[in-house]
């Protein structure tokens, strides 16, 4: 039986194994070499793969992504690390205009992965806590994933690297060392675009992803015990494209849906999921679709403010109880 590993270790294993099996895979980013990355996700890789495949860059996010694209056009499969995902904004043009449109515009595949730590809960303040999926969600041609589990962290990383399209791989930094699991030793992948049922339940579908999956599971246990309400937790895993079939299938069974995400409410992916359900699952619904998300503010720094900002099990429970009465 293999030892349990962390979410962080799973991400690293995913990259490591792909680098072992495919010489065209390489990493570039800030402090990824000798230092092993701000969160140590690439620790030991420089020693193993050498400086042509683990490349420390200057503080130049646009360069990091643009160079990844250029290398991909030459047949490489680059993994671009953003030290914190917040800094991806500096590469916005390269991602949305060059990389995401590449196959559509000129028929060249663009297999790049852009990855980095996202999310709040570590008192990182407005610039080290963001959830950037909303910003890129409106970009055709991009894929966006965020694993919630150790298994998915590894399996999605492998799929992202092998995918011929640009993929933004969001790592929830709160999960890096907080969750551990044993995973198979074989070469498994998790397909992009497929959700999973994290917990089956007959009463209300909670559609979520990332660290919020754990909040939803926590809420589900409590609601099951205290209210006899059984939540079904749908872990999307892929935010773009998202698994429409599984969402609809779940809502068909539960007839009620809550969308939960850590990204801020207005313009967040939840709006899209809710519209999708309303347009395609109206007949199955017994109640309006509800969104639980962070309020429309920057991510604040001080603990009371940040705790107020972040959605959690408690807030979800409140929303569930209200919806159950509808």
């Amino acid at each position, binding site marked *: 039986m293999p030892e349990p590993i962390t979410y962080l270790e799973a991400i690293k294993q995913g990259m490591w194994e792909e680098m072992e099996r495919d010489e065209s895979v390489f990493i570039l980013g800030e402090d990824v070499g000798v230092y092993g990355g701000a969160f140590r996700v690439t620790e030991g890789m420089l020693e193993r793969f050498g400086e042509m495949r683990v490349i420390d860059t*200057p503080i130049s996010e*646009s360069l990091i*992504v643009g160079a990844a694209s250029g290398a991909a056009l030459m047949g490489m499969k680059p993994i671009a690390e953003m030290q914190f995902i917040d800094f991806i904004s500096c590469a916005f043009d390269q991602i949305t205009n060059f990389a995401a449109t590449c*196959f559509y515009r000129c028929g060249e595949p*663009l297999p790049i992965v852009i990855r980095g730590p996202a999310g709040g809960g570590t008192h990182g303040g407005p610039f080290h806590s963001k959830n950037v999926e909303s910003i890129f969600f409106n970009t055709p041609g991009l894929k966006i994933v965020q694993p919630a589990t150790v298994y998915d962290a590894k399996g999605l990383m492998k799929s992202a690297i092998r995918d011929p399209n640009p993929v933004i791989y969001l790592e929830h930094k709160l999960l890096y060392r907080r969750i551990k699991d044993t995973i198979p030793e074989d070469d498994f992948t998790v397909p992009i675009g497929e959700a999973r049922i994290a917990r089956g339940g007959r009463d209300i579908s909670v559609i979520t992803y990332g660290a919020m999956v754990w909040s939803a599971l926590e809420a589900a246990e409590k609601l099951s015990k205290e209210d006899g309400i059984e939540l079904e937790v749908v872990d999307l895993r892929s935010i773009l494209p998202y698994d429409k079939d599984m969402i609809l299938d779940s809502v068909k069974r539960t007839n009620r849906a809550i969308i939960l995400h850590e990204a801020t409410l207005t313009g967040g992916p939840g709006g899209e999921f809710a519209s999708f359900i309303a347009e395609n699952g109206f007949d199955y619904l017994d109640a309006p679709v509800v969104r639980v998300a962070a309020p429309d503010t920057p991510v604040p720094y001080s603990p009371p403010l940040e705790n107020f900002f972040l959605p959690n099990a408690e807030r979800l429970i409140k929303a569930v109880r209200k919806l159950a009465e509808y």
Partner: protein
Amino acid sequence: MGAKKAKTTQKGEVSVYALNPRLKKAFEATLEPPKGKKTYEISPTKEQKIEILRYMKLTRSIEDRIEQKLYRQGKIVGGVYVGRGQEAISVCTAMHMKKGDVASPTHRDMGIFLVRGVPPRRVIAQYMGRRNGLARGRDGNLHMGYMNIGLISPISHLGFNAPVISGVTLAMKQKGLKNVGFCMNGEGATSRGDWHEGINFCSIHKLPAIFIINNNQFSYSTPTSLSYNAEKLSDRAVGYGIPGETIDGNDVYQMFDSVGRAVKRARDGKGPTIIECITFRMTGHSAHDDAGYVPGKHFEDWKKKDPIERWVKTLKAEKLITDAILKKMDSEINEEIIAAADWGEAQALPEPEECLEDVYYNQESKWFALKEEIKEETDARANNLSRSD
């Protein structure tokens, strides 16, 4: 704010020279060909000299056709930007490209596409938004590419290509290839942060990249004095610890030599070079722009430096061409362009539903069949060239 007060001429026009005295210097320095018999480290062969002429003429002709005929007839989809007066830059650069080399051209670099073997008829189909254009109607004008001949399809966002060429040349180094990458920009685009990020990275890693700036003295209506404050853009090379030079971009010998030396350095693993090519955009920014902000005298002055006319003079002096050869060349080009325009126009527009295809990579994509077709065409054209590959 202390904006410089522009001196106005009698007609009330703003003088570019008044705004930017260093351009006057650049202009004067490049008006006369170097005195005496200047020798260059790298010169085109006799065959290449004729090819350079042919491709500069082909470039001018196809752009004239597009801008002055097809566009006015309403046959072109969207805007038209041409590189009239700048042909030496794109053609001489592309003449140095070998198989496996990559260029990221600008909207003034038609010559690169043609030299690399893109057939004029495909260019016309592209400008007309046809499904057989290089972009299948998904984008227009020079926004087309084909990695098989080393051409990156540009996006509008100027400066994007410096990071992209950094990655292209990084991959060349990782793979141990002896190839080079060309990052083409206007002087205006060099104000983008991306240009800095790319060139800085290439310098650090001694990547085989060549940063070619066509300094045509304007970015849209903005004169260089409002774009940067350096004497020469090549002076920026010092800040990156690499060589840089400013040359007459309308002089084929200088262009060919300068790019050739930079290519050699790059292939030898000595890293990037900046080449600033002084030139002038002999048109408005685009076909809808009358360039009223450029004093008339400026166009007249620069007409004397037309790269094609100068090259014709040189080749005549070298007894490499005669009027008869020129006449034949012109009529061949003219015929090809007319046939290209007809072919382009005869191509089908895309089916509306094709809008939805290829957002993501797709193995059954129509791209692959089109690329096969274009590969045959570009291979055939490349085989007729005495260019390096």
